[in-house]
């Protein structure tokens, strides 16, 4: 049996999903974080259940790519039961989607999630009555605490077995008088069968001017489209508004009426967290807090990282001379083993100490609901580079990893905005590059120098954004973003999310690192590394870098942090300051931050923005890296 979780953004679908699947889907407190669907399988009453977590969608008329994905899945997929997840504290608005889902005539269960939050806000919902209105079961739940989930799935299972379909709620009479004949016309043309959806649903979508359904079938049945125009006009003339507004207003009124009939309002409990916006979104204090939060965050990462890196690195580098005592240091075996030790050491001592505090801090900020606030504060600034506030979300995720950042550009409405945001996101120093900044610059030069790199990076991104938006002059559609209530982050969930994101490093990057270190050892053993280094010598000598850097730059395309770890190995000491001047360390870091995105990023760019634009991004970032590194060489 296949069960799909469907609901408006930030209603807790992924939290619910993770409760069943283990922490598989990233959850955060901002609307639109799920941009692809995630699947899991589990057993219920001895039956195999397939559960799908779909991206949130406000309505079944879809605008952004993530919403479209959800709708497509629901329309084409073989879903047996839909669980409509609702944020109970936003019941009236959420019912508008519920009304549309009922039109699809799929077996359905409503999950009133965050019922505790609704009660805190003074909204008491009569569950039985709501269930009676829609003719589908309604199950209250608190997904984050795991309350009501068992009951929800056993209800969903029963509904799926009986194939129980809810009631169709009727609009006002004059609107129904248009829907009914149009539905009959649609049935005649059998267009509904091509879509495999109920004719009434299709009639409504046509009255709403849904571009997907119109464009895909306009050519096939021209007569029908004359009919549609005729019916749209009836509504327009009777109500004095376009037919899409008539339908959405009808739905809005229905939802409000249902809401009023099932809810009794009591006094809301106001807690301290509700007052946080007085500071965090304040026109003056908001920006001060933003700066302060990121400054503290930066210091936390460096503090924790340094505390762990120093002793661990010292420990590992004692191992290699020890190895030399038992195996002759000129042999192939010694090269291989010492290469492996260095790969292992790089991961444990250099990358993880910085990666963990960063990802954990990011998880806390995300779950608290701070990200949409940043979008609000920075919207005006993002307009200066031709984007709008929502683009800050992929950018912030970019400090973690570029791949999900590029995926997150799907929350932007226009193709041009997605392209600009994707290219800029590749320039944001991801966690891999962060470890380079911290372990090289902050560690060997000073934390202030590292901070300067971050600030310079932002300036370069702003200038690049200006250039790109100048090349593609088009007005950004403007921000429409829900600012959700704050949630007190759960430490358990934050750890689970940190672990999910670290897994990527541990299981993908680290093995690559150990293999890479071993290969480099072999190259050094057979003296082939010099050949590669000579090949790169025009570049390295222009940048004033040691010759051995050449090979490391190749590894850097695989994973950015590899280039640093390889560098340590290539120059043969963990004390880089003894071999490279501060200028060289700076030049190297600047070059590595900007040059060609890593392989994983190129792959996702290719999929999201196409091959031509990806090649443009690669060339653009390479030229930028070269220019900036050259400047660094002579200025710093």
């Amino acid at each position: 049996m296949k069960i799909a979780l469907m609901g408006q953004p930030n209603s807790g679908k992924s939290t619910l999903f993770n409760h069943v699947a283990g922490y598989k889907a990233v959850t955060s407190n901002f609307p639109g974080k799920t941009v692809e669907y995630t699947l899991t399988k589990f057993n219920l009453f001895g039956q195999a259940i397939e559960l799908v977590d779909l991206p949130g969608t406000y309505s079944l008329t879809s605008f952004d790519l993530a919403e479209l994905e959800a709708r497509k899945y629901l329309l084409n997929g073989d879903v047996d039961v839909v669980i409509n997840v609702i944020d109970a504290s936003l019941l009236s608005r959420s019912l508008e989607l519920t009304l549309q889902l009922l039109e699809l005539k799929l077996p359905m269960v409503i999950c009133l999630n965050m019922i505790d939050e609704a009660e805190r806000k003074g909204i008491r919902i009569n569950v039985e009555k709501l269930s009676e209105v829609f003719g589908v079961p309604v199950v209250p739940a608190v997904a984050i605490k795991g309350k009501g989930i068992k009951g929800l799935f056993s209800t969903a299972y029963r509904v799926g077995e009986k194939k129980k379909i809810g009631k169709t709620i009727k609009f006002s009479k004059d609107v129904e008088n248009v829907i009914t004949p149009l539905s009959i016309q649609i049935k005649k043309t059998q267009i509904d069968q091509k879509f495999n959806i109920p004719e009434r649903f299709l009639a409504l979508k046509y009255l709403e001017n849904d571009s997907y359904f119109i464009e895909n079938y306009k050519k096939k049945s021209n007569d029908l489209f004359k009919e549609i125009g005729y019916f749209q006009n009836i509504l327009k003339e009777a109500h004095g508004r376009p037919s899409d507004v008539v339908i959405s207003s009808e739905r809005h009124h229905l939802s409000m009426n249902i809401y009023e009939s099932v809810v009794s309002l009591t006094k809301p409990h106001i807690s301290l967290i509700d007052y946080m916006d007085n500071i965090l979104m304040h026109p003056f204090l908001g920006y001060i807090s933003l700066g302060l939060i990121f400054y503290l965050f930066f210091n936390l990462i460096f503090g924790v990282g340094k505390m762990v890196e120093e002793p661990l690195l010292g420990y590992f580098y004692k191992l290699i001379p020890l190895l030399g005592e038992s195996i002759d240091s000129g042999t192939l075996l010694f090269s291989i083993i010492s290469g492996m030790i260095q790969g292992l050491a790089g991961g444990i001592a250099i990358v993880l100490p910085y990666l963990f505090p960063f990802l954990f801090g990011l998880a806390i900020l995300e779950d608290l609901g701070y990200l949409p606030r940043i979008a609000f504060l920075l919207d005006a600034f993002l307009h200066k580079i031709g984007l709008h506030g929502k683009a800050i979300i992929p950018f912030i995720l970019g400090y973690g990893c570029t791949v999900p950042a590029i995926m997150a550009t799907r929350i932007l409405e226009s193709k041009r905005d997605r392209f600009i945001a994707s290219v800029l996101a590749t320039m944001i120093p991801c966690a891999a590059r962060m470890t380079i900044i911290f372990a090289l610059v902050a560690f060997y030069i000073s934390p202030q120098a590292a901070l300067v790199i971050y600030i310079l990076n932002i300036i370069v991104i702003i200038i690049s954004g200006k250039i790109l938006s100048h090349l593609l002059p088009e007005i950004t559609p403007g921000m429409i973003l829900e600012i959700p209530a704050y949630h007190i982050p759960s430490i358990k969930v934050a750890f689970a999310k940190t672990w999910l994101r670290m897994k990527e490093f541990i299981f993908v990057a680290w093995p690559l690192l150990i293999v890479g270190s071993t290969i480099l050892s072999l190259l050094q053993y057979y003296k082939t590394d010099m050949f590669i280094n000579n090949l790169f010598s025009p570049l390295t000598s222009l940048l004033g870098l040691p010759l051995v850097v050449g090979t490391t730059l190749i590894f850097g395309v695989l994973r950015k942090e590899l280039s640093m770890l390889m560098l340590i190995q290539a120059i043969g000491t963990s004390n880089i300051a003894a071999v490279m001047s501060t200028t060289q360390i700076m030049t190297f870091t600047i070059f590595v931050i900007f040059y060609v995105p890593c392989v994983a990023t190129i792959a996702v760019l290719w999929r999201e923005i196409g091959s031509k634009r990806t090649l443009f991004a690669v060339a653009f970032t390479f030229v930028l890296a070269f220019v900036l590194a050259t400047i660094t060489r002579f200025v710093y």
Partner: protein
Amino acid sequence: MTITLDLIGENKKIKVVSISGGWGIRQRLGCLGIHPGDIITVKRSAIMRGPILISIHGNQVALGRGVARKVVVEAE
């Protein structure tokens, strides 16, 4: 008298009269519960012609200045 939402000061309550933008903006605002006839409270207005924060049906929504300009409102 009707004016556009971007000109409304903080902590004012107003009623939506119409949305002057095209199909896309009407639909997107509708999804967040903003329809003609709804009551909106303007909570905050960001500096430098940044977005405005409104409260609608117990929910907070940030609207970019350009978007707010397309919402025609009248004082309650």
